């Protein structure tokens, strides 16, 4: 429990120094970074809105990470999920059907899983490195999205902007209040957190995956298939990312454009590790990461800090958090010179 406290303390210290040296009032800056964004209902709504996909994706990724399956392409799976969901929303014959939203949900999940199935197949069958494959597929997904919104799916009535038509109301999650953007999709994340806890803490499949991660030889000794861990890990991450993509188009976005994610898929990797790969920790990690997103925007707009500076500050915090965790498990000691 000491690690997060030490890390936060160090960040505040180094951050204050940094701001002071550059001529900003440290206290005011920190206040604007961490406190001001949460001072309004709208701020709270934005906070949860951004935390939700981060937590959702991190839950899916952590399932694989626990078994040493390294899916770092959640960003690509999110994009593909968003494309599939939006495709259903745009082209389903009855745009007012109540089936539309559930259909889009499944389309997003299945598309995300399908995208993650490619590295799973390659790793299970041909022992390729899933880190490379998932990352490469992210670039492909980004370009595919770009091609769609510039070409075949571009809204004919959209003044040539590279974006699709807006989705119908039946294809969107209802916001809790039309003044704010937070919508019912946060419940998906709540369910995902519970499922993730159930899976990793209680289920036999989750148990097998933890054996694969902690002692591969013991997994082989017991006859747990390595390929099962690879498939489960990647599909869980793919499904979570695909659903997060769907929730973005059916929520705050309402349509596709070339840029649909501020890097949720990558940030979720950090969230998973800050949360030490367990469900409760991931919730805290997601809330923190989301606050960093919001705070970064806020100081840029209100105090005129540069985007680079806010990113440096975010980096410092994450670095200290992960480093503090590391040093809790591995102690460095000076070894006297000899011989």
């Amino acid at each position, binding site marked *: 429990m000491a690690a997060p406290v030490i890390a936060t303390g160090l960040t505040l210290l180094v951050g204050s120094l940094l701001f002071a040296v550059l001529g900003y009032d440290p206290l005011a800056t920190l206040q604007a970074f961490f406190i001001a964004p949460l001072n309004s209902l709208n701020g709270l709504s934005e906070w949860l809105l951004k935390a939700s996909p981060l937590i959702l994706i991190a839950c899916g990724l952590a399932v694989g990470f626990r078994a040493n399956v390294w899916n770092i392409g959640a960003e690509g799976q999110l994009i593909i999920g968003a494309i599939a969901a939006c495709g259903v929303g745009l082209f389903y014959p009855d745009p007012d059907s109540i089936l539309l939203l559930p259909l889009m949900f499944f389309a997003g999940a299945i598309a995300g899983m399908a995208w993650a199935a490619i590295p799973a197949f390659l790793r299970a069958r041909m022992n390729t490195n899933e880190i490379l494959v998932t990352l490469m597929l992210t670039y492909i997904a980004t370009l595919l999205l770009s091609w769609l919104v510039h070409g075949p799916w571009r809204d004919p009535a959209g003044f040539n902007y590279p974006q699709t038509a807006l989705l119908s109301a039946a294809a969107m999650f209802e916001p809790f209040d039309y003044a704010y953007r937070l919508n019912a999709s946060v419940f998906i994340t709540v369910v995902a957190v519970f499922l993730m806890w159930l899976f990793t803490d209680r289920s*036999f499949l989750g148990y097998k995956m933890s054996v694969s991660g902690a002692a591969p030889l013991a997994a082989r000794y017991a006859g747990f298939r390595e390929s099962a861990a690879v498939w489960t890990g990647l599909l869980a991450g793919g499904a979570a990312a695909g659903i997060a993509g769907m929730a973005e188009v059916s929520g705050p976005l309402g349509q596709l454009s070339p840029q649909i994610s501020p890097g949720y898929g990558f940030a979720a990797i950090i969230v998973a590790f800050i949360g030490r790969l367990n469900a409760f920790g991931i919730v805290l990690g997601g809330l923190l990461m989301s606050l960093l997103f919001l705070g970064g925007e806020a100081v840029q707009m209100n105090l005129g800090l540069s985007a680079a500076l806010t990113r440096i500050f975010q980096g410092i915090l994450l670095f200290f958090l992960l480093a503090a965790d590391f040093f809790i498990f591995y102690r460095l000691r000076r070894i006297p010179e000899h*011989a």
Partner: protein
Amino acid sequence: MPPRLELRNITKSYPGIIANDDISMSIMPGEIHAVLGENGAGKSTLMKIIYGAAQADSGEIFCDGKPVAAHTPATSRALGIEMVYQHFALFESVTVVENIALAVSSTFDLDALARQITELSNRYGMPIDPHRRVHDLSVGERQRVEIVRCLLQAPKLLILDEPTSVLTPQAVVKLFETLRQLASEGCSIVYISHKLDEVQELCDTATVLRNGKVTGTARPKESTSAQLARMMVGAELPEMHVSPSVPSDKPVLEVRGLTAPARDQYGVELKNVSFEVRGGEIVGLAGVSGNGQAELISLLSGERTHPNALAIQIDGKAAAHLNASERRKLGMAFVPEERLGRGAVPPHALWQNAVLTAHRAGLVRNGLVDRKQASSFAAGIIERFKVKANGPQSIAQSLSGGNLQKFIVGREIALEPKLFLVAQPTWGVDVGAAAFIRQTIVDLSRSGAAVLVISEELDELFEICDRLLVICQGQVSPPLIRTKTNREEIGLLMTRVDRGNGSNGRAEVAIQD
């Protein structure tokens, strides 16, 4: 002359247990001193404290009369203290010579070091190839690496924590010669072993621990092994009862013409291996480590599969293509030689390690692990096999070596297998527990199970087996009836020289005379 090593009032506790309780002892230069005690008595803990790998809660250590304060393994090595760990501390992914260079650290001339290793290891009858990667080595070979690493340093105090558990008898003889030589040059040796005959042969003095306390000292050369055993266990050893076996008509395990290529360039190719094990009998597989046992056992256990399904049949069903879990469904259970990392997941609790192979015994319901059932299953093993642990919540790697071994053997036996494969069943287990495990294996077989024991300990094999097989250079001998053979015949078969290809490096490792 001050003692080489003096311990005063060493105390160390772990949560829920006092591993070392006010221990004092001293060892003179050139003395070979045994530390004896049951599993979990605190021997390894004490050695780690001497070596600086663990810190005592209180107490003092003196080396050559000077106090040793706040030391680490590195400072210990600088003082001339070397230790062979019970659970080896080697880096898996690098080669033998690189491992040794890391510990020696004065030299980075790997070629010269490699030559030194080859020369020294051959001289001591423990040949190792310095360029092999550690993760390809069998347990016996790793033990040789650890010992050679220590001997390279010309230590002043050498700590050996069960160094011979997986060495061949021939290598043990050579090792003892070396240790006596070292002692005559003034090196003190602390020697831990559960093999009392070795202790009697080698050691001048002994300290006996029980439950973390010193309960006595002895002069092993002047005591009988029964006396030593009684000091350790605090009671007489139980008698073994081996009733005659009544083998079943059909074999439970049938291996027919099993041929398999080596896993890698250092592995051993299996050549046309055929044998069978019937229900109700115990078959022993003797052989010098590194002659194909690892390959054979991984093929039998299903950790490695074989394309010819009929090469291995379990209970009349083709099984060579099945994985370990599918073979367990046919009634197989298996105890591997590595307990940490293979037979058990080191950072998992005992109840979780029960689920590893006993999940079919009602520990999983509706896809969820039933923690209550798993805990009570683990608690049952702990009680029946007298595993010294804090209960099902204890972490596997916090158990003493012998106690984890008891847990794994107990878990597999509790599954009531039809076919029981067991490698080194009593490795690192104290005399009392070893007798209990052997008796349980005999009882299991007499109740109808087929048992295959892979062991390098001929005494153990002769005590419990009905028939014996010998493996040498990937070939398995025809079966020998225990009562119609003797140690000499088996020993000869174990080191049989295949003159045809005796020139390659493989044969050198396999032959030790």
